[in-house]
């Protein structure tokens, strides 16, 4: 059921509440992207605390401006996929390898456990999973500078 006039609010616990038209009490929901990689702006489910889907949003654009912002806020506080801007250094070319990287969320390091943790995206980009499960994105190879590209190539 695609709903275009969804109504949200935040409660005192910073939970997202959905004011369903047929329900008196607002329902605490968590927005979940169905295709976080392939189509992050589309196909978003609102899931209640039991893991049941309560509503479905086809496109983020269909929502009103305020509601979209609330939703985006809830989404970003839940997921973190920093984009790697530059690979400064890697500890070694055999895995596990510690990469010192610059991301759009600041400088950090990630531990690559295995080359298989680098996922090739159909768009030509990469998703690098760190040892603790955080995902780092590389939009595509040419996005990086030559030095980073060379380091990356050793793991592909």
């Amino acid at each position, binding site marked *: 059921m695609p709903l275009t006039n969804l109504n949200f609010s935040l409660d*005192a*616990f*910073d939970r997202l509440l959905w004011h369903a038209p047929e329900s008196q009490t607002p329902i605490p929901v968590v927005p979940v992207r169905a295709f976080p990689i392939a189509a992050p702006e589309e196909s978003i489910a609102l899931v209640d605390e039991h*893991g049941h889907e309560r509503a479905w949003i086809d496109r983020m654009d269909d929502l009103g401006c305020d509601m979209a912002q609330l939703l985006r806020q809830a989404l*970003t*506080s*839940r*997921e*973190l996929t*920093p984009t790697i801007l530059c690979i400064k250094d890697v*500890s*070694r*070319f*055999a*895995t*596990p390898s510690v990469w010192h990287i610059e*991301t759009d*969320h*600041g*400088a*950090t390091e990630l531990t690559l*456990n*295995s*080359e*298989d943790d680098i996922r090739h995206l159909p768009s030509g980009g990469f998703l690098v*999973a*760190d*040892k*603790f*499960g*955080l*995902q780092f994105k590389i939009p595509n190879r040419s996005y990086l500078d030559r030095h980073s590209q060379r380091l990356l*190539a*050793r793991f*592909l």
Partner: protein
Amino acid sequence: MSHSPNPSVLARLPLDLSPDLLFVSRVLVLTPHEIFLAPPDNEATPEARWALHAGDQLILSDHAGLGKLRLVDTAHSKAQWRFTLSHMKSAQEFVAQFQQLHITPSQAGAIALTASQPTAEWREDASADTTPPSTWTLFRLWRFAKPYKGQLLLGFLLTLAATAATLVPPYLTMPLMDDVLIPFQNGVAIEPSTVMKYLAGLLGAALVAWSLGWARTYILSRVSERIGADIRTTTYNHLMHLSLDYFGSKRTGDLMARIGSETDRINLFLSLHLLDFATDVLMIMMTVTILFSINPWLALVTLIPLPIIAWMIHVVRDRLRTGFERVDRVWSQVTNILSDTIPGIRVVKAFSQEAREAERFHQANQLNLKVNDRVNRTWSVFAPTVTALTEFGLLIVWAFGIWQVSQGAITVGVLTAFLAYIGRFYSRMDSMSRIVSVTQKTAAGTKRIFDILDHTASVPDPRNPESLENRAAAVGLHQVSFRHGNRGILHEINLEIKPGSMVGLVGHSGSGKTTLVNLIARFYDVSSGSITLDGTDIRQFNVADYRRQIGLVLQEPFLFFGTVAENISYGKADATRDEIIQAARTAHAHEFILKLPHGYDSLVGERGQALSGGERQRISIARALLIDPKILILDEATASVDTETEREIQQALDNLMQGRTTIAIAHRLSTLRQADMLVVLDQGRIVETGRHNDLLARQGHYYRLYQAQIKLNEESNPDKTGLGYISGDTGKQDENIASSTVAGHHHAAN
């Protein structure tokens, strides 16, 4: 400063993310009255403080590698902090400390348990060795070469001698030229005895070189073949001891390529390339010595191209190395596709996706071509360049030599000898340059082998294992949590299973049932909490001994290629024929086995293709019976067969379960009715426990699951539309259709 012994600090949680999710390093400090946030190196100057009041709670949650800690009171959220899961452990301790501060009666028990957790902790991790996978990796092969060092030394001495022998003939050209041929041109008659002497010398040198060369090659090939075999065996043994976790994260094709072709490449390298290289180096060193002893100036000129070639080798080296690493990886992609599709060939054909799979293979092959092309581009320029340089070198020697001869500084014989020497010399240079690529290839391969060997098992054996003798099979789970990657699968499971009782695990698919039995079988170790057998943590037992206490019957029984008897006695290789037959009888497998063309000696194929699902299942039950386990785990054992067969299997299972602690997973709730306790799992937590009737009376989770099955049965019609599966797992379709029938059957019987 950050770790100054401040007595009021109860716990510290390093935070690596700011509220707006930037990578910023902070530390969160818990004291009896407040929580404060400070820079990691300066706790004295907090940036923010939160006073703690009664009724405050800390809530820890995580999603997709991102941890969140919230401080809430009864009315609203007071603060929240973010961190990556690398600090999850500290966060859990932080929360535990906090809860101890604000202890409530209901939490007391849980905390006592947390405190008594075994402190031992194991993690699957490669060694911290930071050597880059350069040529140096090859030296790690020494570990495998060591047992053969005597033979290797002999081989080396033979190489030395053989090389020396090959250098005699050019030396003899010198006197032949100067003492025989040139005097002859000047009118001096040839002395047959002198000529004979030199010719005999040439023949002798050739024969000695031949026989030494033969002995050397034979010995060293033997040794390298053995080293190769040792590497393969060691790697495979190591692989067998790695946890399921490792196999889950690796692709079969890749592992197969590593153990198969990589060891072969190392083998070839040791027996052929390294040998050649050693010979070449020796020859060059000896030649250089001889050349200098004959004429230092000419020798110097001859050696001019040498540094140039050495430099070229150095330059190309790097590019080739990365290139070859990529070639290897792409190659394992190709084999991965094979190992993906061939086991799944039925699905491929059923959905007629042969063309798509062919295309996928084609793509991988194209990529392989592309990568190889790139390497070959560098490589192809390299080899002819070395050849060309060799020719230049010869040219220089000719020019300088003729000039020297014209000056009377050297004789024609010396020039001839030089030309003969450097002809060999440079031809060796050419083959030596090849060593670069093979060394790099082998280094890459060696690295991939050592990747496996460096991996330590995540379910390690303890140093001083406890004895498993005379233990009652009472299984206890205390505060067990398990996470896989960034996903928490089980949360704080507490369960006591009495010896000899039967426990049924019930829940939707994905609720963590299989993970729970995998933990009990110690295929993985718990992330936190502990599992005990008769009061002792199972991590204190030897893994193999412990697993010997467990009989496992899976939904998809796996039969190895071999006879029926071999498959039944898989867990107990020394079982007598009587024991095998007894087990087969109890498992209701005896009769159908007798119907097979060769009885117990019949071969069953790769996956027991010739047998039906129920037959394979009964063989696997016999297999579990034979080892006489104390604990029995049935993971959907009757799921993939029809009702009729199920009844037979159920009888076999009843025999198997007698007197053993049994943990059974089943979708078909009716099969678990006689269980002493049913445990209902939902989203990794226990939501209900009790007996069948009690749970039905409670009208909770179990009641709903049970009702759903009955309803499914009533709705099911002959065309098996398959609507309304309990599990969303398509691989388990048949089982659910069948399960509904059985559930209904029992229901009707009631």
